[in-house]
């Protein structure tokens, strides 16, 4: 029983670490939705692009990781702007469901294009961070690093949104889209900045994920759905809600996966999501 408890504690702590990463994933999507009112279904595919960017810059062109990663973040931020200008902008006035679906088309495109360009082989950065042992438990250093950077990224985002002029304008737009142009804020410009920020957050997530997982073109499908569900569970556009939901989800996956089997952890988390939707369709912290 003693052993069981210590492994359970390890599962809980690993869930906490996973939660930090999931919270970072949902942050970018929530930012985009809160401001532009569009769900980027292809968000995880942007992350996949970022992972390939880190891989190619580091492994193929031998850039040091500390240079390759900021570059990858910049590349994905640029992708976010391109996505907004060429795909989202033409459908801003269209029906909401078309806005949802158009980024689904981008998902197909990016996934297939990645297969075409990069091949279907699993690629690995070849950087293995050591495992850290605490008592009888062990944690991977890359997970700890991801957790720390994710938290730091979220704090930075919070400070930017609350302390800077641009951040204030972004929050204002998300509260009332119609009135802000009258106050001298250009929604068009804010949308572009927000897309770049959302892209940059995806890029940051990519840099953290690439340390833990192999890269392949379909990797987006393995954490894309869960990111949407977290955002919806927390209340679409509500960043704090997304934060809480991410940690809840991570516990279900980690502890559920520990007690039963990894897939069952996900099944429990998804069923929990569906049940909460019936109880609070607007999400945990969302407002109607």
């Amino acid at each position, binding site marked *: 029983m003693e052993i069981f408890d210590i492994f359970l504690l390890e599962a809980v702590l690993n869930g906490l670490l996973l939660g930090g990463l999931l919270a970072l994933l949902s942050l970018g999507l929530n930012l985009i939705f809160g401001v532009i009112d569009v*769900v980027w279904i292809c968000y995880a595919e942007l992350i996949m692009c970022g992972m390939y960017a880190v891989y190619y810059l580091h492994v193929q062109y031998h850039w040091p990781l500390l240079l390759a990663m900021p570059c990858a973040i910049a590349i994905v931020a640029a992708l976010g702007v391109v996505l907004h200008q060429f*795909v989202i902008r*033409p*459908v801003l006035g*269209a029906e*909401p*469901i*078309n806005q*949802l*679906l*158009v980024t*689904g*088309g*981008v*998902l*197909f*495109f*990016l*996934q*297939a*294009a990645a*297969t*075409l360009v990069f091949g*279907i082989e699993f690629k690995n950065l070849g950087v293995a961070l050591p495992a850290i042992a605490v008592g009888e438990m062990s944690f991977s250093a890359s997970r700890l690093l991801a957790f720390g950077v994710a938290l730091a990224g979220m704090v930075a985002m919070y400070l930017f949104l609350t302390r800077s002029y641009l951040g204030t304008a972004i929050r204002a737009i998300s509260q009332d889209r119609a009135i802000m142009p009258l106050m001298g804020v250009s929604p068009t410009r804010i949308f572009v900045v927000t897309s770049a920020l959302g892209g940059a957050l995806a890029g940051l997530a990519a840099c953290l994920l690439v340390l833990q997982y192999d890269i392949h*073109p379909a990797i987006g*499908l393995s954490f*894309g*759905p869960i990111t*949407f*569900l977290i955002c*919806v569970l927390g209340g*679409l556009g509500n960043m704090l809600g997304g934060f809480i939901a991410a940690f809840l989800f991570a516990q279900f996956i980690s502890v559920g996966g520990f007690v039963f*089997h990894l*897939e*069952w952890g*996900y*099944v429990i988390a*998804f*069923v929990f*999501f*569906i049940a909460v*939707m*019936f109880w609070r*369709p607007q999400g945990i912290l969302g407002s109607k």
Partner: protein
Amino acid sequence: MKYLALALLAATPLFGVGNYPLHLMILVLLWGYIYTSWSLMGRLGLVSFGHGAFMGIGAYVVVMLWNHYGVSPWLGVLAAFGATAVTALVIGYPCFRFKIVGHYFALVTLALSEVARLIIVALRDQTGGSLGATPNSALNEGASASLFALQFSDKRVWFYIVLAAWLAGLWIWQLVDRSMGRIALQAIAEEEEAAASIGIHVTRTKLQVTMISALMTCAGGVLYAQYQLYVNPDAVSGIAISLQMVFGVIAGGMFVRLGPTVGAAFTILLAEALRYFFGNKFPALDTTIYGAMLVLFIIFMPKGILGAAEAGWRKLTAKSPARA
């Protein structure tokens, strides 16, 4: 004209078409049928990403019952229908009762299709997990058909089976289209509160069309499994297949009866044509082009191929002096 085309279509296998073209036609008709089932809901504002779950239930319940208990697919399909109806009710009723619409409906149903896929993978001792499963063959000693096991090695038999399913799908589409329910659902899609205020039972009407659509998709899953004689979780459930249905319908046009079929024909023939011209040098070229075209379709041609063609045709005929 319509019947002549249908007769020609029905007669094609008799002209000794090769196995490969016949296979393509079967796929187009089968997916055309499944896309038609999806569009019953989609065109009335219920955009579901959960149809992968219904297809997966159809395919796996039948194959598992056959493999583990020797239950004939004819009985298995009843079990699959039962399971699908329960699933659709458990998800649909609260969704409609608590007014989960639009984005939220799409994402809740997305969770459903992932749950279906994950359960299939998790039960790997029974289902074979991600590797998939093959129904035990009932065709021993040179037999080419087993009605009891719903296994036929002759593609012509399958052609007529899926042709019948496809025609039945179009017929149901028409029945729904001409029913009061369709008008009610259109009103609901426009403005739910207003529809309720004139006495439309929103939850019940939505559930009815969801049931029809889910059961039809389930039957599609059964046919798919029995035709391919192979199922795997990614091919019949999960987010990828659900998105494929949605986009196939959008490409073809979801507001016209043959739109989903045109979408199926377009996507399958595009993939085959690109493979024919470029060989297997570029493995994902077809989906790359397909994805780019989808984006362009939704931006510039939201009514789909057939929808746009019909609108164009109407414009042309309206301009002709005979009408004026």
